[in-house]
């Protein structure tokens, strides 16, 4: 992500191409009081695609766009209520997008158990990372032969970090 522009230069386009999966009629009608979120959830259930998603459009006569999030490639469901049509497109797989998506996926924010599981795995990774850092201090103390190098490493690391806290 720190070298995003460089990595993107290997791809022909900034965003992955959307490939049409299918287009079909969709005749279910919704009450005027139904929210975009309620409509989107119902559509996904009807299509057998229920899961983590985001909603946009669906106001001022614009089609409702549901981005169904997947780890490997997202799907875009466009519901045109006027024409009673549904269009489903799939994002072409791209390693960069996949890695960035997984990096940004937080879990817990969606109402699905799978997303909570992902959130829990991130929590475990956080605990492991912090344990890894702190266990280094412990090892440094236990391993007398490398204590001097450890001291240099800890002092330089903490010193540099402190400098950054002040300067940038």
């Amino acid at each position, binding site marked *: 992500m720190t*070298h995003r522009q460089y990595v993107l230069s290997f791809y022909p386009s900034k965003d992955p191409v959307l490939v049409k999966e299918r287009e079909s009629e969709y005749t279910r009608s919704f009450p005027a009081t139904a929210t975009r979120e309620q409509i989107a959830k119902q559509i996904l259930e009807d299509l057998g695609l229920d899961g983590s998603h985001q909603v946009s459009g669906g106001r001022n006569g614009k089609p409702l766009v549901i981005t169904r999030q997947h*780890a490997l490639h997202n799907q875009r469901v466009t519901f045109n209520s006027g024409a009673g049509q549904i269009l489903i497109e799939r994002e072409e797989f791209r390693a960069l997008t996949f890695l960035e998506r997984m990096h940004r996926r937080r879990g817990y924010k969606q109402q699905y158990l*799978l997303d909570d599981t992902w959130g829990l795995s*991130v929590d475990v990774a956080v605990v492991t990372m912090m344990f890894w850092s702190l266990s280094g201090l412990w090892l440094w103390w236990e391993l007398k032969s490398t204590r001097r190098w450890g001291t240099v490493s800890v002092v330089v690391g903490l010193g540099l970090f402190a400098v950054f806290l002040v300067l940038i």
Partner: protein
Amino acid sequence: MPWLLMYGLSSFIIIHESWFKSDKERSWEPLFEKHYSRPVKAATATDVRTTAQQILKDCNLEGAFWADQPTPDTLNINRFTFWGSTRLTYSIKDQRLKAERQSTPASQAVVRMHFRGGYGQPTFWNQFWGLLVDLACVGIVVWTASGLIMWWRLPRLRAWGALAVGGGVLSFLLLIWRL
């Protein structure tokens, strides 16, 4: 070590964002408002950035920033650090420059460190931060790979290691497949 602790702590804050959210919106405190004159020929994002950098230099506020020109008459600059932001608004027509400052709570300062890439911003220290982020990335990859080497070299722990590697790979694949 501090970088890994920071990435761990900030990830926790990001994923449990609601626990750390403050209901009180932080106010912008006025720093100065003065007459200022600089011709702006901002046609592209690069031009906008160049002009913004010159304005920051004139105000002794050089460092990491974002800039945009929402209207032909206004140039906005956000000069940020881990601990706060300075917002500069340059009204081109009136030739007025206004600066305001907002502080950042400690929990959000850690999150700012997480999101800070470094490259693409002026000053040596920003570039150096970017280099150390690269080093932290290499450290994490070496950490993972060295675990596999250690697992192979320690026959006493091989069964537990196999269980950890197998369980980790399987659960990751399962999540990727189902998510």
